């Protein structure tokens, strides 16, 4: 069973300082729960995402596929003449443009949900529910066999940096 040490903060600035402090103290900060996104935290925790690359690939593939479909249907499969225009017309651009966006949007959203493992009705496992309201929660993993003084040190450090509460939680949330 994994146990986490939670430091609950009221203020976003406090928790930023706390992250700095803990990291300075060589204590790995596992995670930070907040009611809104905090860029500083991501920098501190060295978090990155490759979602934009995925989106780019979706767009490129989608665009090419759309053109292929349009070209194949109107030039190869069943060529029909409309209003004296050539079979392979400029107006394909409009549909390609829109469908590219559509494919990009849908697949980006899908990738996000899959990557983040979100689905309707997924059980939420928040270490501290208040982090969705007005609290900021700093999570430090209490590894197996972590010496007691280490735990106390972390807890003290948390209190020191302005945590209003310091708890331990068994909630095993999936990151």
């Amino acid at each position, binding site marked *: 069973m994994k146990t986490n040490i939670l430091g609950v903060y009221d203020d976003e*600035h406090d928790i930023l300082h706390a992250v700095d402090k803990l990291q300075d103290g060589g204590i790995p900060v596992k*995670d*930070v*729960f*907040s*009611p809104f*996104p*905090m*860029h500083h*935290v*991501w920098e501190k925790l060295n*978090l*990155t*995402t490759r*979602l934009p690359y995925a989106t780019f690939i979706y*767009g490129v593939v989608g665009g090419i596929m759309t053109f292929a479909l349009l070209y194949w*249907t*109107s030039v190869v*499969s*069943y060529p*029909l003449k*409309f*209003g004296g*225009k050539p079979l392979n*017309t400029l*107006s*394909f651009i*409009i*549909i390609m*443009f*829109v469908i590219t*966006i*559509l494919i*990009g*949007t*849908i697949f*980006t*959203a899908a990738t*996000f*949900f899959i*990557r*983040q*493992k*979100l*689905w*309707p*009705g*997924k*059980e*939420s*496992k*928040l270490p501290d*529910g208040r*982090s*969705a*309201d*007005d609290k900021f929660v700093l*999570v430090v993993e209490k590894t197996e066999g972590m010496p007691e003084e280490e735990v106390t040190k972390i807890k003290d450090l948390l209190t020191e940096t302005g945590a209003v509460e310091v708890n331990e939680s068994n909630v095993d*949330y999936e*990151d």
Partner: protein
Amino acid sequence: MYNTRVRGVLIKGNKSLKDVTQDVLRPMDAPMPRWWYVTAFLAISAMIWGVWGFYNTISTGIGTWGLNNNVAWGWAIINFVWWIGIGHAGTAFSIFLLILRQKWRTSINRAAEAMTIFAVMAAGLFPLIHMGRIWDGFFIFPYWNTRGPLWDNFNSPLFWDVVAISTYLTASFLFWYLGMIPDFATIRETTASKIKKKIYGVMSFGWLGNARSWLRFETAALLLGGLAAPLVVSVHSIVSMDFAVSVIPGWHTTIFPPYFVIGAIFSGFGMVLTLMIVLRKLYKFNDYVTDGHLEAIARILTFISLIMGSAYLIELFTAWYSGNEYELFTFLKNRVTGEYTFAYWSMLTCNAIIPQLFWFKKIRKNITMVFIISLFINIGMWFERYVIVVTSLSRDFLPATWATYEPTITEVAVFAGTIGLFVMGVISFFRWIPTIAISEVKSVLKETTTLKSFTDED
């Protein structure tokens, strides 16, 4: 998305994070107010009437409308374009202001996006109902079939329309829903009701709100926003191509795409203004939707109104400058002075002249006046579409075919039905969905309260 500099105070009243949560969620927990029932009753009545209109049209034929051989498009297309225009505000707010780093959008964008969804849904009904053979409507999708296979005409603006609008609806919905996930999680975590906890729990997709999920969330939101941004331009450009690509005088003009996009944003902002004033009044959101917000919208409207006005003038100029007798007739004889003078001048007054009143600070600050003018803008934009669709068609190239158009009760019913649908959607949104993006407001709360007031800047 969240951490950008802000010009002034966006949220007044020195709110704490807790206050924000409570303020926004309070109306959802409060007992159903009477106005809600009254509005819902009216909206549902309108929808029932609209269903009658639908039934009448589908069972008897498009002949139940006032269209004729010459004016083959009427209220259905006017209303369609009008709704689509209104549907532009949501994305315009969320995405343009996002790109322009306009922080004040945070308290409005959720409502604006909701409006988009319902307006686009209302709009989407019109192309459906206006088909002569709705039961064969699936022909419009290029699916593998046993007819050869036979595909669609990819040159047709109507096909582009179908693609663009479904894309727009999908993208808007995804963007909107994505933004709501953290708020649903907030409700899930704060509500006392078990049922609510269950429902919003399902809807929140098990949102955590830890650092990594926020990172991915924001990236995804930015990506969706970035993808949708060109849509805001393209959707109404494509709608305008329904007209611009044709040969009909008054339609066949290159100014249409920008003119339509601007018009759409204009009508969308107008509707946002109308709705926000109502929302703020009903939910006492004065601290979130501040006078400053309203004024900002009003300023934008004034600017767009000027663009609209010049577009109207340019239309007249091109008609004159082209020397094309059909164009000249349509604009100068038919619209400005002819049979459709009333519609034309209503359009011009409501869209180009009345919003100029916003130059006056007194009017800008007077919420009642702002509300009335926002209504005028909505009406004016409706007239704009009326002028475009009806005047051009009713008197085009061959005078022998000229015919006039008057809507029938069925068309009115269908329109009323879509208004009912929109209103019903909006009040359901008011009731069951946080009307202000909680997490976004929270993110700007700390930074703004300490700065100089947004509204008192001058």
